[in-house]
């Protein structure tokens, strides 16, 4: 099956506000999929529906054939969907290494007995965990900071750490919520390179929400455009750029 994430006719209301209306889209295996739209278009709501923070009024979301609708946040991760947050949410008082190790929690098995006895199985698990965490930090390019507290990292490195933490759970789909927000042009370009290299090395799908349309055009395989809670376009970047509704939506929001 080529489709990984299937969002099917999702609608979401908050009281009288129609945040999402009948939105359908699919993300394929090994695809970088972009979600754009003017402010208030419903991007974040859709993201929250996918990641389990918001239950949709109707419609459902499946990942690799499993329904995610109504699952708890931590169960969604176990099904293979890891995310980052718009306003970075690390474990600020823990070291960089610990942050990544926690990201791999779902793949561990050590319980109370293993923790207390430190039997062979627990020790091996811990050693593997450390090795994998180091590798991940290397992959995102912050391996020289393993013992630094997360809050003392620079802004760009915090973004990278958050991505490493999400990758630690070996997701099928990595969902990035405005990963380039607040970055300068050089950092943005570097981040785009990183995302592309992750896809190439790990063979995962990546879903990105972002404001910066130009940046997204050069990154994504396909892009969906949301406007007032509706999907007004879904296509390859070149055609999305020329789509009359998209132009109207963006010009309209600018005036």
């Amino acid at each position, binding site marked *: 099956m080529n489709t990984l994430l299937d969002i099917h006719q999702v609608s979401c209301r908050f009281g009288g506000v129609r945040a999402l209306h009948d939105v359908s889209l699919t993300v394929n295996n090994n695809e970088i999929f972009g979600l754009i739209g003017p402010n208030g278009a419903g991007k974040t709501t859709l993201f929250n529906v996918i990641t389990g923070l918001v239950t949709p009024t109707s419609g459902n979301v499946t990942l690799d054939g499993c329904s995610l609708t109504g699952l708890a946040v931590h169960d969604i*991760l176990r099904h293979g969907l*890891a995310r980052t947050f718009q306003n970075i949410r690390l474990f600020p*008082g823990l070291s960089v290494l610990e942050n990544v190790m926690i990201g791999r929690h779902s793949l561990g098995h050590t319980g109370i007995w293993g923790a207390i006895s430190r039997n062979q199985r*627990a020790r091996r698990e811990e050693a593997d965990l450390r090795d994998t965490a180091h590798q991940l930090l290397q992959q995102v390019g912050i391996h020289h900071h393993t013992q630094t507290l997360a809050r003392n990292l620079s802004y760009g490195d915090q973004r990278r750490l958050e991505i490493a933490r999400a990758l630690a759970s070996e997701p099928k789909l990595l969902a990035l919520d405005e990963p380039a927000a607040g970055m300068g042009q050089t950092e943005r370009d570097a981040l785009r390179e990183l995302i592309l290299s992750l896809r190439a090395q790990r063979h995962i799908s990546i879903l990105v929400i972002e404001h910066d349309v130009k940046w997204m055009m050069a990154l994504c395989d396909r892009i969906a455009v949301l406007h007032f809670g509706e999907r007004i376009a879904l296509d390859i970047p070149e055609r999305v750029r020329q789509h009359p509704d998209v132009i109207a939506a963006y010009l309209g929001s600018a005036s």
Partner: protein
Amino acid sequence: MGASASIFSPVSVGKGLLLVVLPLLLQAGPGAAWVRIVDMALLYSMLAIGLNIVVGFAGLLDLGYIAFYATGAYLYALLDSMQFNLHWPLWATLPLSAALAGLFGLLLGAPTLRLRGDYLAIVTLGFGEIVRIFLNNLDTPFNLTNGPQGISLIDPIRLGNFTFSRPHHFAGLTLTGTQQYYYLFLATVIGMAWLATRLQHSRIGRAWAAIREDELAAAASGIAVRNYKLLAFSLGATCGGFAGALFAGFQGFVSPESFNLMESVMVLCMVVLGGMGNVNGVIFGAILLTVLPEALRMMGDWQLNHFGHIWIDPNDVRMLLFGGALILIMLYRPAGLLPSPAQRREWQKKLP
């Protein structure tokens, strides 16, 4: 690794020896009362270790922790006293007390899972008071707890034929009851501290730390937040129940008054002051906050001996000095006197 390599170093051996001979020195020097004070300090250390699991590891503010101490103490008192003329053996009472407290921990934890910070503090505070008021009033309709009078004539702790409250002779030395309790409590504190440290540096401890740092991010990292919170509450309560049972046997008397809100606040102060999240730190906090007030009490006797009159009644200024010390420590050592390694790193970075 570091700990096991250094366990036979001269410093560790010296510390160990000091711990072993401490009750003998205290008995010979300042007197038997101080052995008792140190025993209490060890009981409070157990409480601090338990509360630290909840507050320090998982970041859940619990203001009713003493209720678990009360649960353990009362269960021991009911099963080993003239109250119902039951005299169960220690191997049954002690685990039961710990388990019942652990169950109470779950009962408190379950409805408060969605609460954080101030709200959680208020509910736990209420829980602590409920338990105390129940103990105070359960002399009717039938006499379970003996009400405000409490339960007296509780059996001392007995291991086989060894009764801890009775003096025994060892190799030409006579150990008093309080001295023997000291060794029992010391062994328990070391055991609990070891367990807590093992848990802290494991997958479980990291999950707790993640919840403490950012609950949503923890859930998004695949941690079943609810289960880990319940685990923290329950394990913390278990330590409290265990300590409570030992306290009942040691003291021979329990009453609701010993488990009031002030006690919960004291244990919380020990944790915060000593260094939240650091097991050695909270033990240090417990010992400090048990010994200091007693030392202050001695100041009254000292004044009486030297001036024939008590100018400043230690009981009047005790809370004043205590509050002042707390404020000073929080101003100058906000991470506690012995902060956890991560916090210490943080703290050193801020220094010029």
